[in-house]
């Protein structure tokens, strides 16, 4: 099989309207060992998460550490098996129409910790060529491809192909990570904290590289980060996660201007301000993050929410549209019928009527 | 903590069972006739059959295992084919001697190991450290049975100060007649544990002293003595744990030294059992020695848990 056949980018199946990735009711609980007879708690790492990603879009996922964003990424790419839920890639369900092996040709991941993300014993060339070789490319084809990819990510193959990871800087290693992810010509790339470990200037270069590659190669991204500035820069739409659940999703500027979930607002407010006239005076979220083993009843955020009422403790809010169809939030204040005294009000002062 | 102890106890049960199984299997895969040492070579087939039945060797293996375990739980480990005495009797007699030897060796090893380890840790990278490290490595690389021979050569053959073999006449008593027989074997046995303890303590003490909070303590003006006490308290649990394990090894693995010195302990008993192909004695002895080791490991774990607050609170 020639390289062109084995690794041609997989053809588009469903047309531009069909989302490239659909995640439905995804859940993953981890059992903990403990106690005298091995009964322990259950960490509800990802709980009933659903979202869709359009073709050519960049979906950002934000949240505190431990909110389940990395686990979600690993579920999507099949490194962990979900307990409940479906993953649908361009109309085909994983497990049914789509085997995991094929899934891995279409979805790839760029990892964060760039030192542990590259095998210290393999040269850069070998690392990038590994994937193609696994899928049937001959050694020559795979290495040629590796050289091409190095060029694409801005590294001169003559200088870098034979090097080992420990000889490179963080920014260079992340470029290698990206090149490796692109080696199998995927359609969807998951970036898990891909720039978090880099210096700011290098971070900017890598982000720009990512955007260029997206346009060149027609990629779709899911970009996971705890850094709101980065997410704002690169995303088209943003998903906010808290304790394993999606609490809000919206197009990026809509989220920044009119966030509806108190947690999102707190996250945005917590960003240190660069404006000396509008300094961030106090931490907007009170209390400690709750234990993912024993999440609060009802709305998981209610223990730290300044707007919490009894309905919040009693009933879990579902993702509800806020008037703008593309902007949904899981908060009783958005749901007109919830019984919350603030239902229907937005923070920007506009009132809603369903 | 109690939960931890209970957990450990529960885990020990399958281990003990597996140990018993392995003991049994080891002995019964041995080629050769188990009764060869007892029967005269011209014994009739009928007599051989009778003996076999008397010892239960004619039953299928799983049944033999079951019977053996059941009897063992009731305190009966069978009868030695060679001497005709009960295995328990033989082992009890020997155990005391081995325990005395091993405990004394452990004490010597522990005391000197700690001493050397502390010296090396305190004077890290100096000549003291190098000397101690050399001693430790020598101790650990030493074939102790050879050391025993060399000590016998020096102290018995050439100088004639100490006896070479045996325990002294009759049963054990804490008199010079017997103690002089104990010295050489105990010293020989102490060398390996001493080396291991010295190495461990050296590393521990060195690490502790270089940790920042020790510098902080000293900066606060705490006297050296207090620092020393502090270091000891932190190093003690691990040192004790290591020594406990070593004691277990000594108890279980004393055969070589006991052979060199003809010390009438469980090791020598094992030796005899092997060469006389005395199956019941062999089985029983291996079981008891292995159990010693298992129990000691358990004790060391529990002790460590009691002393180390990190485990205690878990």
């Amino acid at each position: 099989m020639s390289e062109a056949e084995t690794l041609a980018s997989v053809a588009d199946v469903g047309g531009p309207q069909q989302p490239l990735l659909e995640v439905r009711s995804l859940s993953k609980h981890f059992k903990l060992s403990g106690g005298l007879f091995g009964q322990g708690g259950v960490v509800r790492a990802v709980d009933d998460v659903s979202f869709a990603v359009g073709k050519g879009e960049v979906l950002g996922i934000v949240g505190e550490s431990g909110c389940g964003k990395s686990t979600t990424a690993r579920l999507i790419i099949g490194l962990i098996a979900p307990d409940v839920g479906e993953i649908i890639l361009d109309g085909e369900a994983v497990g049914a129409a789509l085997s995991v092996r094929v899934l891995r040709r279409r979805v790839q991941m760029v990892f964060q910790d760039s030192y542990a993300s590259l095998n210290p014993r393999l040269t850069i060339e070998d690392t990038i060529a590994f994937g193609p070789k696994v899928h049937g490319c001959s050694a020559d084809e795979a290495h040629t491809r590796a050289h091409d990819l190095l060029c694409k990510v801005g590294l001169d193959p003559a200088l870098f192909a034979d090097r080992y990871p420990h000889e490179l800087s963080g920014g260079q290693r992340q470029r290698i990570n990206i090149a490796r992810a692109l080696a199998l010509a995927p359609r969807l790339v998951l970036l898990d904290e891909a720039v978090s470990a880099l210096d700011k200037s290098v971070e900017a270069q890598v982000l720009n590289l990512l955007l260029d590659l997206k346009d060149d190669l027609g990629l779709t991204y899911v970009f996971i980060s705890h850094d709101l500035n980065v997410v704002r820069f690169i995303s088209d739409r943003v998903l906010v996660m808290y304790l394993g659940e999606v609490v809000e999703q919206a197009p990026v500027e809509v989220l920044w201007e009119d966030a509806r979930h108190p947690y999102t607002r707190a996250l945005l407010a917590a960003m240190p301000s660069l404006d000396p006239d509008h300094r961030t005076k106090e931490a907007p979220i009170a209390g400690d993050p709750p234990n993912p083993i024993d999440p609060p009843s009802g709305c998981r955020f209610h223990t730290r929410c300044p707007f919490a009422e009894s309905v919040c403790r009693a009933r879990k809010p579902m993702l509800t549209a806020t008037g703008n169809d593309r902007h949904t939030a899981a908060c009783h204040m958005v749901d007109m019928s919830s019984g919350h005294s603030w239902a229907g009000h937005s923070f920007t002062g506009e009132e809603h009527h369903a | 903590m109690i939960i931890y102890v209970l957990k450990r106890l529960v885990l020990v049960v399958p281990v003990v069972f597996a140990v018993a199984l392995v003991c049994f299997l080891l002995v019964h895969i041995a080629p050769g006739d188990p009764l060869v040492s007892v029967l005269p070579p011209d014994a009739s087939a009928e007599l051989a059959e009778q003996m076999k039945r008397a010892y239960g060797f004619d039953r299928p293996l799983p049944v033999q295992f079951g019977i053996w375990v059941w009897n063992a739980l009731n305190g009966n480990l069978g009868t030695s084919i060679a001497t005709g005495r009960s295995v328990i009797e033989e082992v009890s007699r020997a155990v005391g001697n081995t325990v005395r030897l091993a405990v004394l060796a452990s004490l010597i090893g522990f005391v000197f190991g700690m001493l050397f380890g502390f010296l090396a840790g305190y004077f890290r990278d100096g000549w003291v450290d190098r000397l101690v490290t050399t001693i430790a490595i020598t101790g650990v690389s030493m074939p102790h049975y050879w050391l025993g021979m060399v000590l016998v050569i020096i102290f018995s053959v050439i100088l004639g100060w100490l006896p070479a073999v045996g325990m002294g006449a009759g049963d054990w008593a804490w008199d010079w007649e017997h103690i002089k027989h104990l010295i050489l074997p105990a010293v020989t046995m102490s060398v390996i544990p001493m080396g291991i303890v010295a190495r461990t303590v050296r590393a521990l003490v060195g690490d502790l002293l270089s940790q920042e909070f020790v510098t902080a303590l000293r900066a606060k003006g705490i006297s050296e003595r207090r620092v020393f006490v502090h270091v000891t308290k932190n190093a003690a649990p691990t040192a004790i744990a290591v020594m406990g394990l070593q004691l277990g090894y000594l108890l279980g693995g004393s055969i070589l030294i006991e052979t060199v010195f003809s010390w009438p302990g469980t090791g020598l008993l094992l030796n005899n059992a092997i060469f006389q192909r005395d199956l019941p004695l062999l089985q029983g002895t291996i079981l008891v020695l292995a159990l010693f080791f298992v129990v000691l490991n358990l004790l060391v774990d529990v002790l460590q848990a009691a002393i180390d607050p990190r485990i205690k609170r878990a």
Partner: protein
Amino acid sequence: MSALADDLVRIAKVDRARGYWTTVGRRLIRDPVSVGCGGVILVIALAALLAPYLGLADPYHGSMIRRLRPIGTPGYPLGTDELGRDMVSRLVYGGRLSLFIGLAPVALAFTIGTTLGVIAGYVGGVVNQAIMRIVDVFYAFPSVLLAIAISGALGAGILNSLLSLTIVFVPPIVRVAESVTTSVRNLDFVDAARASGAGPLTIMRVHVLGNVLGPIFVYATSLISVCMILAAGLSFLGLGTRPPEPEWGLMLNTLRTAIYLNPWVAALPGAMIFTVSICFNLLSDGVRSAMDVRG
């Protein structure tokens, strides 16, 4: 390509990453203790291998008239043993079996133990539990006891010793291998390899093994000295090599009764065991230090 580009490439190739093992080798050679110990072992091993060509006396042939001659007897620089055989010859030839029975079990245990440990560490789950619990059972016995029990059961002989010692050393290596593999397995690059669709065997071979062999190897070398002592110990008890084969442990056994007549000759075989054992120990420590290279 322009001339400048050519130069750049040439410089880059020359400046190219030195292999990890070359660095380790370089550091090892600079350590006098390691070099010394390595030298001693090499000399003994070579002498053992080339024994027939060294013009030594026949190690099997002795004469009762010349038994137990002391060290320095003309014609017998290290004396003679209890059957009148030349000690120099016995010791040199003895090196063959002694070195073999000291190294081979560790080599075998390394192979078997690494395989089992890497599988247990990588696959995890039930397979891991099964393998590690079996290993735990063997850990319930002190190694000396286990070796002697197995040898006692199987009977004397070199192959039996080999088998019994290999069984004794497999469990510790499995434990170390499993532990190292588990920590490597959790690193991101293994996840990345899984994400590219590779199967477990490929990943173990390409990504795990290279990163894991180093630490396991170092640990295994630290076991060699113990194995030599234990192997000689088995022969000393009569459970290993059988007479008249020359082997240091067996020689200690047969010369034991001679300590009253010729103590120093009786002690010689043990000195050899000790020398080789301590050299392996120091060498192993040296290798460990040399391998502690951070990129």
